[in-house]
């Protein structure tokens, strides 16, 4: 199973700052179902190409980030990354073991 989209945002709630954004035309993200252990929340392989990213804030461990992807006009999910899995390479991000949580 795979999900794809062209809208997402990474914020630092404690600073009220947007530190990365995915939007058309150059931005995109994809989620692919990964192996999950019995009884655990499904894990996903996440790939993103950001339209904008502030790498200094994105990589600053002092701040907790909130990563949301828009699946459809009405549906958004918050992504949770395992420790050390939110590492930028230029404008790209490739992470394993990501979990998804619906945003109300």
């Amino acid at each position, binding site marked *: 199973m795979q999900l794809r989209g062209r809208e997402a945002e990474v914020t630092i709630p404690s600073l009220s700052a947007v530190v990365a954004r995915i939007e058309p035309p150059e931005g995109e993200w994809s989620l692919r179902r990964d192996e999950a252990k019995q009884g655990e929340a499904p894990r996903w392989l996440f790939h993103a190409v950001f339209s*904008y990213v502030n790498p200094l804030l994105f990589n600053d461990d002092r*701040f907790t980030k909130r990563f949301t992807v828009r699946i459809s006009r009405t549906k958004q999910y918050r992504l949770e990354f395992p420790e050390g899995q939110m590492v930028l390479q230029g404008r790209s991000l490739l992470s394993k073991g990501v979990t998804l949580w619906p945003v109300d």
Partner: protein
Amino acid sequence: MAGGLKAVDAAETAPSADEAKDESSRSFHIRGKAYVLRELTGGEYYDEQRVAQNEDGDIDMMLLARLITLKGVTCDGKPLDPEAWSQESFSVVNRVQLEMRQMHFIAAETDEEKRDRLKAEAAARKGGGSPN
């Protein structure tokens, strides 16, 4: 001889080590918590300014104020925790940030200006009016 006179002037206007330390930090209490504010160095300030650049390359001054506050302030001897600080009452946050902005965005007074200001203030106190 002129060089000697300059040396005397400089010595007279130079602040003591204690005075210089007082000017580079501020401390006060708000609601029972002890805040200590430290002036950032030029390098530290420009690092935070770089972090506060938005996607258009402009400096987000609100974000910069938050970043320099997190960098230069301790509360009860500990660095501010970003999450906990975001839960603090805005009036407290606002006061601390106001002090940080004053420390960093108002150009430092030269020793000569300070000396003249203190003289003028002393004369005003003595005369009860303008020193001029």
